[in-house]
């Protein structure tokens, strides 16, 4: 395993303009203005935070996992990663990271993908994409399922081997670790704090995360 480079932030939570604790299984959809910084804190460790970003003025211009990894020539997200849109714009930049590696290949869990991955009778269990669906229903403004695209999994570790195998490795995060994203344009951010109980992406123990915004 390569060594992770960790970057701490100088931002003081006392000066945040927004401070909210998001429970596991809950969703969050919120505007983040250009120049503002969003911090996501993995309060208890090994949580997965499924996250999407949109250009607030044109939701069809949105986070693209493939454009992001291609732009940096590497699969894993950390400090310095520019989060690219489907139309080639820079949505945001990761400016601090005390975890060191985040995934954008694994997507979000869903009722239907849980059926495929685990068992046909798992459909009823709560999932990230059900959280996304409820959040966009409440948000309104014409957002629909087609806007739910391939997301970032903050704090999740999904290594690809040289043979092209995809593995779901033990988390590299721990309680109190955080990642910070600076908005490079006005954004809408959509988060599902992952409720998955069928695999170790969050150590079978979904836990809360803290969301802070600085101006």
């Amino acid at each position: 395993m390569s060594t992770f480079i960790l970057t701490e932030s100088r931002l003081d939570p006392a000066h945040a303009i927004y401070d909210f604790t998001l429970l596991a299984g809950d969703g969050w959809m919120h505007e983040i203005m250009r120049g503002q910084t969003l911090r996501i804190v993995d309060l208890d460790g090994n949580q997965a935070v499924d996250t999407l970003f949109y250009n607030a003025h044109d939701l069809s211009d949105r986070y693209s996992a493939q454009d992001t990894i291609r732009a940096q020539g590497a699969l894993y997200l950390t400090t310095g990663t520019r989060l690219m849109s489907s139309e080639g714009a820079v949505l945001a930049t990761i400016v601090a990271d005390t975890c060191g590696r985040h995934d954008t290949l694994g997507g979000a869990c869903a009722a239907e993908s849980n059926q495929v991955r685990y068992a046909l009778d798992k459909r009823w269990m709560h999932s990230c994409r059900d959280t996304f669906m409820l959040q966009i229903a409440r948000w309104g403004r014409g957002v629909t399922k087609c806007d739910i695209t391939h997301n970032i999994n903050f704090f999740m570790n999904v290594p690809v081997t040289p043979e092209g195998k995809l593995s779901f490795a033990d988390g590299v995060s721990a309680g109190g670790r955080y990642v910070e994203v600076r908005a490079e344009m006005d954004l809408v951010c959509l988060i599902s704090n992952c409720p998955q109980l069928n695999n170790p992406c969050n150590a079978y123990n979904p836990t809360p995360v803290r969301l802070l915004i600085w101006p």
Partner: protein
Amino acid sequence: MSSETILFEESLPGGGLWSWRLRRHTTLRITDLDGGTNVGLMAYNADQPLDRLNLPDTLKAQYTARLTRGHVLMSDLGHALLSITADSVGWHDPLGGHGHAALVKSKYGEATYQEKRNDWFRNAHDNFLIELGKYGLGRRDLVANINFFSRLDVDVAGKMKFYPGNSRAGDFIDLRAEMNVLVVLNTCQHPLDPNPAYAPRPVKLTVRQTPPPGASDFCRNFRDENQRSFILTERLFPGAST
């Protein structure tokens, strides 16, 4: 292939674009005519296009970051869209995505239609949008695409590197539709292709009638996850012979 009925065949030049509503249990063969082609592809349930290719779901269900025979391309609603029933290459790229007009311009310069007619420089993003628009789909319907015939190697630190010479003249892949599938594809170069010249390569597209996958079908049985995805898909077609 000889005993099966070829429904039609078309050739597509490099930089070209194409879409088709593949009927259930027909198979699309894509043949690399000159070697070194790249085929960017997206897929949708033709009967309900909100049900669409989801590469993260496809890859994590099959624990793979490359695609080859046995793999099933899955939708975000757990359905099997296309099965890879034959593959002479062995590695197809699900990671690299596709290029936009700005990328083509920065890598290859400009060649307008006015000046070059149909030898102008095209880009995958615009080609996807043109074909998607024919079905009422647009920017919001773009999904992560596969790059057939191309390969990216990934090292332990996650660095991606284009693997040259992955596909040779005559190499092919077979994609069997497990439902009615809208396929949207183009033959623009892979966005990480280091070739400094605009040199997209042609393919042949062959659509043929194929038997439904039986109980012992290779793709169905490739993994337990694939079996469950087939079951969910067959529930969409009650009474049909599987």
